């Protein structure tokens, strides 16, 4: 099948699945790419925890922070569905910075991420990204703000109204009346900017090798594997990734390393047009499209 026909079919699949999707798949050795709307900016949701981990680990390398430092973290006590780890804890904990990195990156714990943001504020994370020459990923706020969305204000039976609002209240130029969904105010990025970040982490770059290696290790331990992992992981490959989920946003960016050495970066950023919270089929469609693009790229 020609690339054009394949992309057309994939766009139709996304439309049928009620998704607006931005995809980019890149062969990290040859630089060959295949994508759908790879330059569209979307709010990053929890994807921002990769730049956060990168900045924190870089400061540990520089000696500004010590990974063994114990911090007291207040529990999140969040009971609405979604948040994990310390965000759901009921009692304060004493925890080391290294372990906060694990919780923030591998189980997408927002409270752990905010404890790290307290050490390295969003502006400083953005500054370190710039030092590494990584453009296009905005880091503007902590993750606490991500959990205070309209969906927390509705009863479970009426949560679909919050999703309808998320879908309908967009303004021109990718603005939005829900601040977490407004790319001009929220942490945001495009599929391409996240593939650039993955490329810098997996191939030699301005990022010191030991820092990149630790971020890769954290992403390999990602516990949230329901989205596109099922279509990429096997005994013959390693899938390292980070997911992002907020209101109608579903993202995952990751790298698949095959045992023969081939390595592909995959960035999938989507917004759903379906006003429902739980949509396993959206995850399945995202994974199918990402895999199809990767398979096509691999055989070229």
């Amino acid at each position, binding site marked *: 099948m020609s690339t054009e026909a394949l992309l057309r079919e994939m766009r139709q699949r996304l*439309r*049928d*699945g*009620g998704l607006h999707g931005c995809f980019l798949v890149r062969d990290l050795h040859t630089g060959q790419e295949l994508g759908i709307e790879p330059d569209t900016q979307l709010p990053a949701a929890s994807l921002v925890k990769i730049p956060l981990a990168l900045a924190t680990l870089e400061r540990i390398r520089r000696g500004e922070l010590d990974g063994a430092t114990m911090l007291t973290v207040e529990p999140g006590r969040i009971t609405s569905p979604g948040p994990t780890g310390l965000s759901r804890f009921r009692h304060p904990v004493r925890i080391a910075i290294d372990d906060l990195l694990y919780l923030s990156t591998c189980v997408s714990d927002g409270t752990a991420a905010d404890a790290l943001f307290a050490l390295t504020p969003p502006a400083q994370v953005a500054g370190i990204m710039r030092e590494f020459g990584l453009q296009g990923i905005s880091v503007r706020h902590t993750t606490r703000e991500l959990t205070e969305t309209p969906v927390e204000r509705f009863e479970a039976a009426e949560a*679909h109204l919050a999703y309808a609002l998320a879908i309908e209240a967009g303004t021109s130029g990718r603005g939005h009346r829900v601040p977490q969904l407004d790319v001009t105010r929220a942490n945001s990025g495009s599929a391409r900017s996240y593939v650039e970040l993955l490329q810098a982490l997996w191939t030699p770059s301005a990022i010191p090798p030991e820092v990149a290696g630790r971020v890769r290790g954290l992403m390999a331990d990602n516990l949230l594997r329901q989205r596109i992992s*099922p279509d990429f992981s096997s005994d013959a490959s390693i899938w390292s990734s980070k997911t992002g989920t907020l209101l109608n946003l579903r993202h995952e960016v990751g790298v698949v390393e095959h045992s023969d050495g081939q390595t592909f970066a995959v960035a999938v950023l989507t917004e759903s*047009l*379906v*006003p*429902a919270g*739980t*949509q*396993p*089929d959206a995850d*399945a*469609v995202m994974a199918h499209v990402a895999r199809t693009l990767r398979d096509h790229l691999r055989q070229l």
Partner: protein
Amino acid sequence: MDLVGACRAFVSVSERGSFTVGAAAARMSQSVASRRVAALEERFGERLFERTARRAVLTPFGRDMLPAARQLVLAADVLQHEAETAKLKPWRLAVPDICSTAGLARLIADARGHGVTLDLRAAAPAERAELLHSQQVRAALLAVPRDEATWSVPLGLAGAQDPGGKRLYAETLRMGRAALGEPRRIWIQPEDDVPHIRDPLTRLRDAVGLRPAQLVVAADHTAAAAEVLCSRDVLLCSPAQARELALHWRPLGEITLTRGFALATAVAGHPDHIRARLGDDIARCLGADEGVETPGAVVT
């Protein structure tokens, strides 16, 4: 007194110059003619005829009254004729375009038996309301929610294959993770493209995790039926429609959907008398007189 009858006797006797012949020409007995003329003379306080032995001759007063009496008789005849014509004037009624030709013909025939001549306009729901609003029809059967409906028709899902069981759950149409091929669709006829049917079904689609493309509003009833006949798709329809298409009908498992109809008349009209006269005939035409059938009774 019967003024028109008296004038008719007066005019007829004066034209014939004889009570006997004049009475016969007006199809009344001579004694009735005499009594009516006498009553008229008493009312005016003046004689109309010189009563000689054999002939009835007008008095000068009688000659003066004759032209006006003729006009009155003529006007009464016109009035009677108008009444007959008005009774035959057809009642324009907008009906759903899903009713079968046989059903509509039966409705017209039954209505004629009740002294009402119907002129039917088959149209989709929005068009029926528009026809009524612009007074192109005198009355319309409007699509309304169940609690406002005079006639209700149960809706369910019908497919070419026998699904077994008593009801069909929309969730059974959801794609499994390992499923291949095209997902099964639910087709909505234009008649059911109204908020009180389409919106709960859309919400159900999102809640049970169907893809957006699995719920389709067809351009017309025939196209929808054709799709269902040649695939595993299902049609949202009434038991009667399913029988006509030889499809297997089941009630929807998760929610109860009902087509409701109410008779509405243009501005000054009052629908009660037509509803009283034609209610049963309309119910039969809409298929509202039957209850929900047991699966065993569905004709295949």
